């Protein structure tokens, strides 16, 4: 095609057409820059939005079916309250789903059905329609969803009170703080991969706290003023510790940051250390040992800065007797009371001595075989945990979660501690961790239960099994996850008076985009059965607490799309000026081509191609650099953060890493818009070129 070959000739930069070449280059670079910006921005934004929505859906479900008022006033719901088969108590959705009897009413034994109740809804065989089971059945018959899962959910509100016992090194009794929060408590499906990914891993501080809490009896705090002093009997304690060490292996310990007194028995015979010697009244009273010999000068300056009189010297052990050398004097034997302080954050490889479990009455008693290198000299021995802290621990493979929540190895589901009679386990949102709570902390959930005469406070002991990241879900910071049994118990205190309407059926499936379609399909199925008025079907975009957020995300997307379009138009408008200069530059050639029979359409196509090729090259460069940027986005953000001295993005909102997946939607948008707008930009100069009269050009030349 001759138009293409001529256009390509025009686009090759030439020294003779320096101004055109420079303008072309700038136009292409501007387009590349804009495309880069849009692709990176939309990819990160789409990634973030998807992860936010995923988390919201993980904590709820893509579709929820909840009972309407009509359900709560139906014969089907109320009948349990007068039936002996149901123990005269109302059933929640979960119980209705698993109950063997759809109509528990026995007219011969149970009291008469009140006349003002609505009539029972019967099927063609004259049997009561089981409203909940019918919804579940209809859901399983849906054709659209892939990987369909149905479960009941329950949400309630209660007060959570945690007693934070903290064992500070050096003091024999733990300090105690109270954390008191009103919170939503919701059930969760532990086989949700997004929720499993949102579970925060245990930190060394969590492991230390868990270890200490093994010595505290479960349910120590539900009575006030107990300070966790309810004692475990020795057998129980042994069992606790055995369970703990069956599932957790402590790998290394570290010294506290304020320093640690090195026991003399750990120091091997004939060892030598560079030390800082604290002098008082011209006598050495304390030795500071840096972990590395080359750390001595900075240690000396640090201690001097604190106003201490220190000098450098050498500690030499001869036999088992310590000597010091300083000020070029002969060695002096040290008095035994003088302490050797090991500076902070020294790491020890640690291995628990199993027999110490039997004799331990508090965590500090546990004996470890510790090994470390101080100034190149190996140091090892058996030593109690004491003031040392856990620096690294791991969950043993195949261990059942006894005290904490963990995930399956492929992170597809949460492994939740088994339900224990003594204490319930809960998962707290990240905000509690930021406020100082740790895994293993105990406390209780309190709620008020009406009795015939008064309203009584009920307390359910709980232990923190883990923390999860709720993303940006509204109220996510107050949304505690707990087992269904616990929520059912709290809800039973105000059954029939459900202000939260926090009970229903979760419908989960793989593709979120199918939500509206599935909702419509299910609604039609329920309408056909005549039970649609008993149920409210909502997709994740319609929940009260997500509606505004999701609408906000949509309107932001629309706004940013319009802004991007404007930026692309501005960037592509450079092409117009470049092409007009090119047309002026190539006037004579246009005349020659016309004289040889090129039509005005062909001339227009040549310049149209020039515009489109420039737009396409610019967008290709932009896309390539955007892909490169996305690949290294976290390194880039970390680097810029380092330069600025603070985090660029708040991890609470944006997560620990930014999403780096290229957004196909953004890519398609940019490629199509850029090509189209650059073609449009080419039209004006192309029409101008095609309108030139060959006779005028050739005569002028």
């Amino acid at each position: 095609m001759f138009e293409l070959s001529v256009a390509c000739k025009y686009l090759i930069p030439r020294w003779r057409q320096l101004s055109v070449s420079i303008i072309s280059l700038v136009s292409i670079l501007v387009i590349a820059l804009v495309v880069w910006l849009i692709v990176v921005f939309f990819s990160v934004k789409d990634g973030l939005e998807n992860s936010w929505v995923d988390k919201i859906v993980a904590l709820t479900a893509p579709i929820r079916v909840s009972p309407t008022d009509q359900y709560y006033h139906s014969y089907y719901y109320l009948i349990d309250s007068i039936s002996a088969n149901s123990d005269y108590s109302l059933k929640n959705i979960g119980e209705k789903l698993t109950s063997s009897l759809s109509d528990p009413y026995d007219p011969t034994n149970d009291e008469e059905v009140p006349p003002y109740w609505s009539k029972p809804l019967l099927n063609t065989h004259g049997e009561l329609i089981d409203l909940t089971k019918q919804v579940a059945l209809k859901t399983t018959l849906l054709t659209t969803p892939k990987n369909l899962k149905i479960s009941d959910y329950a949400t309630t509100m209660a007060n959570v009170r945690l007693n934070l016992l903290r064992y500070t090194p050096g003091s024999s009794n733990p300090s105690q703080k109270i954390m008191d929060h009103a919170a939503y408590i919701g059930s969760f499906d532990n086989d949700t991969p997004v929720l499993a990914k949102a579970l925060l891993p245990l930190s060394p501080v969590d492991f230390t706290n868990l270890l200490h809490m093994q010595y505290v009896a479960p349910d120590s705090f539900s009575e006030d003023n107990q300070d966790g002093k309810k004692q475990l009997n020795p057998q129980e304690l042994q069992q606790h510790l055995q369970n703990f060490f069956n599932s957790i292996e402590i790998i290394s310990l570290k010294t506290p940051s304020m320093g640690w007194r090195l026991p003399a028995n750990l120091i091997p015979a004939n060892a030598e250390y560079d030390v800082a010697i604290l002098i008082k009244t011209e006598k050495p009273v304390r030795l500071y040992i840096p972990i590395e010999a080359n750390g001595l000068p900075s240690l000396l300056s640090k201690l001097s800065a604190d106003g201490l009189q220190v000098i450098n010297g050498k500690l030499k052990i001869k036999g088992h007797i310590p000597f010091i050398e300083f000020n070029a004097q002969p060695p002096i034997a040290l008095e035994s009371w003088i302490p050797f302080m090991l500076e902070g954050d020294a790491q020890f490889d640690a291995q628990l001595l199993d027999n110490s479990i039997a004799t331990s009455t508090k965590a500090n008693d546990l004996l470890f075989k510790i090994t470390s290198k101080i100034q190149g000299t190996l140091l090892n021995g058996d030593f109690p945990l004491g003031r040392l802290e856990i620096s690294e621990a791991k969950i043993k493979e195949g261990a059942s979660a006894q005290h904490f929540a963990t995930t399956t190895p492929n992170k597809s589901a949460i492994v939740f501690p088994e339900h224990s009679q003594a204490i319930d386990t809960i998962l707290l949102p990240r905000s509690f961790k930021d406020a100082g709570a740790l895994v293993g902390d105990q406390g209780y959930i309190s709620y008020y239960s009406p009795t015939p005469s008064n309203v009584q406070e009920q307390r359910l002991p709980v232990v923190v099994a883990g923390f999860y990241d709720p993303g940006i879900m509204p109220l996510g910071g107050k949304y505690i996850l707990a087992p269904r049994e616990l929520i059912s118990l709290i809800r039973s205190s105000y059954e029939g008076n459900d202000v939260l309407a926090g009970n229903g059926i979760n419908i989960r499936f793989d593709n979120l985009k199918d939500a509206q379609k599935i909702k419509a399909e299910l609604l039609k199925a329920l309408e056909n059965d005549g039970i649609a008025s008993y149920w409210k079907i909502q997709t994740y975009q319609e929940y009260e607490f997500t509606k505004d957020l999701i609408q906000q995300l949509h309107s932001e997307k629309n706004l940013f799309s319009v802004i991007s379009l404007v930026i692309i138009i501005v960037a592509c408008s450079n092409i117009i000026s470049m092409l007009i200069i090119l047309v002026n530059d190539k006037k004579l050639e246009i005349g020659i081509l016309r004289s040889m029979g090129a039509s005005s359409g062909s001339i227009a196509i040549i310049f149209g191609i020039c515009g489109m090729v420039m737009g396409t090259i610019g967008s290709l460069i932009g896309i390539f650099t955007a892909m490169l940027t996305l690949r290294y986005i976290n390194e880039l953000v970390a680097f810029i953060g380092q330069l600025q001295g603070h985090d660029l993005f708040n991890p609470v909102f944006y997560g620990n890493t930014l999403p780096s997946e290229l957004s196909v939607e953004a890519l398609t948008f940019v490629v199509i818009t850029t090509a189209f707008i650059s073609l449009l930009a080419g039209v004006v100069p192309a029409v101008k070129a095609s309108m030139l009269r060959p006779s005028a050009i050739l005569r002028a030349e």
Partner: protein
Amino acid sequence: MTNQYPILKATKIQKSFYNPVHINIFKEINLTVVRGDTLAIMGRSGEGKSTLLQILGTLDNPCEGSLEIDGISISQFNKSEIRNKKLGFIFQSFHLMEDYTTLENILMPAKIGRQSTAPNSPAYQRACHLLEQVGLADRRHFNTKLLSGGEKQRVAIARALCNDPDLILADEPSGNLDRQTSEQIHELLLNFAHQHKKTLIVVTHNQELAQLCNRRYQLSNGMLIEDTDS
């Protein structure tokens, strides 16, 4: 085969300019050119020789009158095709396309006519043959910027013949060349016209070139008068 139509028939051609005052440069020009004829149009500068040639070559529109080329009446819609297939232009300032080689320049009309220009294609072979005939076979891959004036005009002649047109229109083909080179170009042009049985219309001041043509016309005061003196 001899075509029954004259190759060019211009009837009552008029052309006026309005800038800044109305000037009627051609009053009523009638011209019929038969196939294989060679024709020189002469006249003083400013008489409108080049304008007439452009009108005859469909590059410019007459204000009045009609034009037929090879029996086809010229309209806005078939001009480009007629120019590509039936006409070949040679200009005083050569008007070669820079940034292209000699061969690429010669092949350009074929490209515009959507013919294949791949090596060994008929158009390519014809272009090579034309290059040999104008004596520039060894310059085929030269950039046209590097050629001398005479060489450039020879390339322009070869280019005009690329699509084997019936009518060649030359506007002062030797106007920018020295005497010796001009003579060579005149000879080449006339030889080509005779050899390939082409019709040639040439606008020139050059008496020698005019003498080489079968017919000579004078454009004077807007009238085209055949010169039968010599």
